[in-house]
């Protein structure tokens, strides 16, 4: 009996040793990161392609040998367009899968849901979409445009073209309301006129009253922060009412190449959008990115600003890891400040507040849903999470 027990013990010790060998071997070979976007539900239209762009960057990095000698292993989770789900999935990625960083989120609601999870678990989130500012968590890298990198440059462009009477139209949630709050302050400060302001429920399809109000207010330009499918209804009904880009131009913050395709390029011809990136940007890094994405996901795939940000975020993380010589989130967060690279967006640098110093472009929609760049910021724009005019005295630590 006794020697049998020893046999068992030996076997167990052997197995234990084997399993430890195995786990340390895999720890040596790969490093886990999370990709957390809505793969189902109403936001999946926009977020699937953003997840694809992050995956493309990860595949490219792995093909070139990985990060610090380790292959990146992706744990993909579905936020399902449901904000509490984003929080649970983020918790799962950080505590069970033990990922070293997460790339994800689109709506401000999903980001706000994930923020406490990342702060509690000392994780790191790369957030690729333009947003309303007013937030700076040490655990989030906000690479999309701050208000002063999209909304305000758009206003300045409109004023420079002589459009002094402005109508603000948006979906009814935090981003359009905050962006317009900031815009109103600047419209007043610049001596321009606010013709009117109107919000339609997210997903709303009826714009008859709104167009009637626009007609009564007689603005020279509309600044549009509608999100999602409401844009399709709005542009169809705006055109039916006899408006066009020449009679009443619209400058939009949530319409990129992909949205242009689904709205129908014919409806959008001549309209404007402001972003940090357009598919048509001529820099060589972008040409390579567009070619690689279309080779993998279809040769007519549209590429948008949040996709370019998501793609670049992975490379930014890699650069920060290599600079820190560590995968540890707080070390990466420290190292990422000051990193500068040539990206599809052009030259970008990470500022101390974790956002990007990046250029701003105004594009005009043409045939095929592509935008032609017609305006550009003077050099790059430093990110300001808090607008000085609207929220005086507030700033990031």
């Amino acid at each position, binding site marked *: 009996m006794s020697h049998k027990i020893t046999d068992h013990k030996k076997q167990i010790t052997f197995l234990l040793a084997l399993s430890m060998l195995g786990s340390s071997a895999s720890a040596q070979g790969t490093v886990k990161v999370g990709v957390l976007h809505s793969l189902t539900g*109403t936001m*999946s*239209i926009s977020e*699937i392609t953003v997840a694809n762009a992050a995956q493309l960057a990860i595949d490219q990095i792995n093909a070139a040998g990985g990060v610090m000698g380790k292959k990146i292993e992706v744990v993909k989770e579905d936020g399902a367009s449901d904000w509490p789900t984003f929080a649970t999935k983020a918790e799962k990625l950080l505590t069970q899968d033990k990922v070293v960083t997460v790339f994800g989120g689109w709506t401000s609601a999903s980001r706000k849901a994930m923020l406490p999870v990342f702060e509690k678990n000392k994780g790191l989130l790369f957030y690729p979409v333009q947003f309303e500012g007013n937030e700076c968590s040490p655990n989030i890298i906000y690479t999309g445009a701050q208000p002063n990198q999209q909304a305000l440059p758009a206003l300045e462009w409109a004023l420079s073209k002589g459009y002094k009477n402005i109508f603000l139209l948006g979906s*009814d949630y935090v981003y359009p309301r905050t962006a317009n709050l900031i815009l109103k302050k600047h419209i007043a400060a610049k001596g321009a006129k606010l013709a009117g302001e*109107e*919000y*339609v*429920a997210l*997903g*709303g*399809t*009826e714009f*008859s*009253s*709104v167009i*009637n*109000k626009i*007609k*009564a207010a007689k603005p020279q330009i509309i600044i549009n922060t509608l999100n999602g*499918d409401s844009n*399709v*209804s709005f542009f*169809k*009904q705006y*055109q*039916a*009412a*006899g408006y066009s880009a020449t009679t009443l131009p619209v400058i939009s913050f949530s319409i990129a190449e*992909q949205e242009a*395709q*689904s*709205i*129908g*390029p*014919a*409806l959008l011809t001549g309209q404007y959008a402001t972003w940090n990136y357009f598919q048509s940007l001529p820099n060589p890094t972008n040409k390579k990115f567009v070619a690689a994405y279309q080779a993998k996901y279809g040769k007519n795939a549209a590429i948008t600003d949040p996709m370019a940000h998501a793609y670049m975020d992975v490379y930014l993380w890699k650069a920060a890891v290599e600079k820190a010589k560590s995968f540890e989130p707080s070390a990466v967060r420290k190292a990422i400040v000051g990193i500068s690279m040539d990206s599809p967006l052009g030259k970008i640098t990470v500022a101390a507040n974790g956002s990007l110093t990046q250029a701003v472009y105004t594009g005009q929609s043409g045939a095929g849903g592509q935008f032609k760049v017609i305006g550009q910021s003077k050099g790059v724009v430093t990110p300001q999470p808090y607008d000085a005019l609207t929220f005086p005295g507030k700033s990031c630590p």
Partner: protein
Amino acid sequence: MDSVFLFGQLFTGLSVASLLLLTALGLALSFGLMRVINMAHGEFLMVGGYLTFLAAQAVGPGFLWLAFPLAFVGTALLGALLEATVIRRLYGRPLDTLLATWGISLILQQAARQIFGSTGVPVTAPPWLNGAVTIHGGPLDSLTFPYVRLFVIVLALVVLGGMWWLLNRTRFGMHVRAVNQNREVASILGVNTRRLDLLVFALGAGIAGIAGVGLAMLSPVNPTVGAAYIVNAFLVVVVGGVGSVLGAGAAALLLGFVTALAEGLTSSSLAQATLLILVVVFLQWKPRGLIPTQSRALEEG
């Protein structure tokens, strides 16, 4: 509020009413006359929209002559298929029907996603519908009536008229009304109620298909568009009086003008809340709706 804005809002009311009516008529048939709570009704609208897109792909800008018959026949066949395979087996079990049709709506949405992708497809109104009637001079100077909206109003009137004629002036309609009043007696008197159920459900679906063509010119065509309309369609049916086609017409007008008034005076998002509150209050006052129908089937329910 100047007079141009006021008349503009009146036209908005009429336009919203026509959309409400188009989306609700098919539902009034299946919900009212057959007591089937069809949660997949919005998806019939969506299918109509996609068939419009296919028609536009096939014949180019002048697609409407093809889109209407294609959407009507296509969705009617789909409706008939669902009636024969699922809904027929659930008559008299309203909660099961509710659940089953909701499941069907999810399946149809996912099917649209698989076939056409999750991004919507572009449908634009034919060129002859681009433009608007504009009043020049006088107190109503620059008041405009877009052709597309006028077209949808006419479409709603034609469909409403056609349905009223069908229900009140034909033998088929007499059978429908007879079954609605007392299914057993109608059956004893020789009405083939099974066949009638199939036809009524298919007709309701077909009308939703026609509505889908109209909607495609003003709204997006994508997998989730049906969900945007289903709540308002149910509102119209309930306010109008369950089972009443003319009631649906009256309710659509009422809700359309209330919406336009509330949107004119306040903002779009506040107007939606106002409308829902008013409907709740109205149903406290008149729980059977504007024009209630006398029906034994409904009393039993």
